[in-house]
């Protein structure tokens, strides 16, 4: 079975936090740990997560913008960081419910219990998907788990997708193009990115042109079709069939 890729959603510009805009992506070439809100830093402190760059396994979350970067995941097994079987922010802010999670200390204990080391996480996710989901593609497309877990998190009546989506955290900035398998974006974002690439010297532009020509999907921002996140997840799901 193919590994579920890492997904990073970026591009929401109307927040105080730094985010990956096209010119910055091209200029810096890095996904930055600094690209997060104070609320996320609070979660990191509370749960002893360290200074993290966040990905979801297989989920393109539209709340963070409409440019979706999809990575082959194997590289992350060899770096510092960790994973959890759910969104840690969702637990901290009370958006995810599970048995016994009735205080801050209990929430931290719950997170600690469900932490997964990065070496081998891809295989552990496959085991998790086999145990709890109909198919890996269904997980990527947001279908709920078919069975519950012992803490009733997976089938909690008020829990949503982030309650069962794996969060993968690395303690380093990540080169945007390294292991990039797919860049899915609106036509507006694509235009900005293309303009930024045009300002590069030819040798630097060449690698971005490869991304634009062979590893990207452009979604018509004005069209009636699926959103960027849905389009990205459908593409990922097709890899897992």
């Amino acid at each position, binding site marked *: 079975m193919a590994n579920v890729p890492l997904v990073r959603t970026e591009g929401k510009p109307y*927040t105080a936090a730094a985010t990956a805009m096209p010119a910055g992506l091209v200029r810096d070439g890095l996904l930055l740990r600094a690209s997060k809100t104070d609320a996320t830093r609070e979660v990191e402190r509370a749960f002893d997560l360290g200074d993290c760059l966040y990905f979801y396994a297989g989920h393109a979350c539209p709340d963070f913008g*409409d440019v979706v970067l999809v990575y082959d995941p194997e590289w992350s097994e060899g770096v510092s960081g960790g994973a959890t079987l759910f969104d840690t922010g969702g637990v901290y802010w009370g958006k995810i419910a599970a048995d016994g999670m009735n205080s801050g200390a209990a929430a931290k204990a719950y997170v600690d219990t469900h932490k997964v080391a990065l070496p081998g996480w891809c295989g552990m996710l496959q085991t998790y998907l086999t145990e709890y989901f109909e198919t890996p593609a269904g997980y990527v497309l947001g279908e709920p788990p078919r069975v519950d877990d012992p803490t009733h998190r997976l089938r909690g009546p008020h829990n949503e997708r982030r309650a069962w989506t794996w969060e993968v955290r690395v303690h380093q900035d990540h080169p945007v193009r390294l292991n990039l398998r797919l860049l899915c974006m609106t036509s507006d974002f694509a235009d900005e990115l293309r*303009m930024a690439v045009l300002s590069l010297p030819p040798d630097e532009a060449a690698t971005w042109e490869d991304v634009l020509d062979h590893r990207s999907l452009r979604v018509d921002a004005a069209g009636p079709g699926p959103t960027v996140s849905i389009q990205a997840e459908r593409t990922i799901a097709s890899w897992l069939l």
Partner: protein
Amino acid sequence: MKWPLPPEEISIVGFSGAPVPGGAGLKPPAFRHEPTGRLFTLAHDPPQFYGGPEVDDYVQRGLLSLIEKPLEPIDGGLILYADRQFMEPPGDRWRLETSTLGWDEKLGAWVIYEERSRALGRLARWGRALIKDAQQRLRAAAKLPIESAGADVERALDDGRRARFCAPPPENRDVREDAFACWAGAWLLQGRPIDALLRDARRDFPDDPTIDRIEATARDLAKPHAPIYSPRKGNPKLSWAPHAT
């Protein structure tokens, strides 16, 4: 002569609206549901309703765009939004008419909610206005000594870049083609090769005739500064030689 580099952050124009909550983080409009006072968005089927405090929270977090004016949901309607830089750039740049748009302070953008076809038509009108200004500027610049043409060329370049956002592929194809031609014309007047730009245009126009037309229009706009050969078609012995003045 050193030409100014284009601004790093391009001002944008984009769409948002059911069923496309895309467009750089701007989310679908929320409509007031009378008489309860609740609000709902068309991004969900069935519609998802929100209470007052919840709406405030979502608006503050930028998850919802709240249209203050009373509006009726339009089937397939969407928000057309454009940031201030796009509509009213500073300095001696072509400004677009904003009188029919609403200003959203929280978003820092001009917005209007309307049918998709009307929004595309509005964009096309903006694009054509920008292109017309760019063409006039380039023709004027081409008649000047190259050292004196900077301001006109810079403005035409800005026009061309903004016009490109008025033609989100595959819509308003003619505007996009002309935008590329203006941009390429400006590059020619700046003494820059246009090969990379034409390669980029090919991502939207894979057919040779359109690319040839873009190149020909650009060279026509940049006459007499533009070289008359085509690097894309190969003529390595010739090189760029600015018009002697």
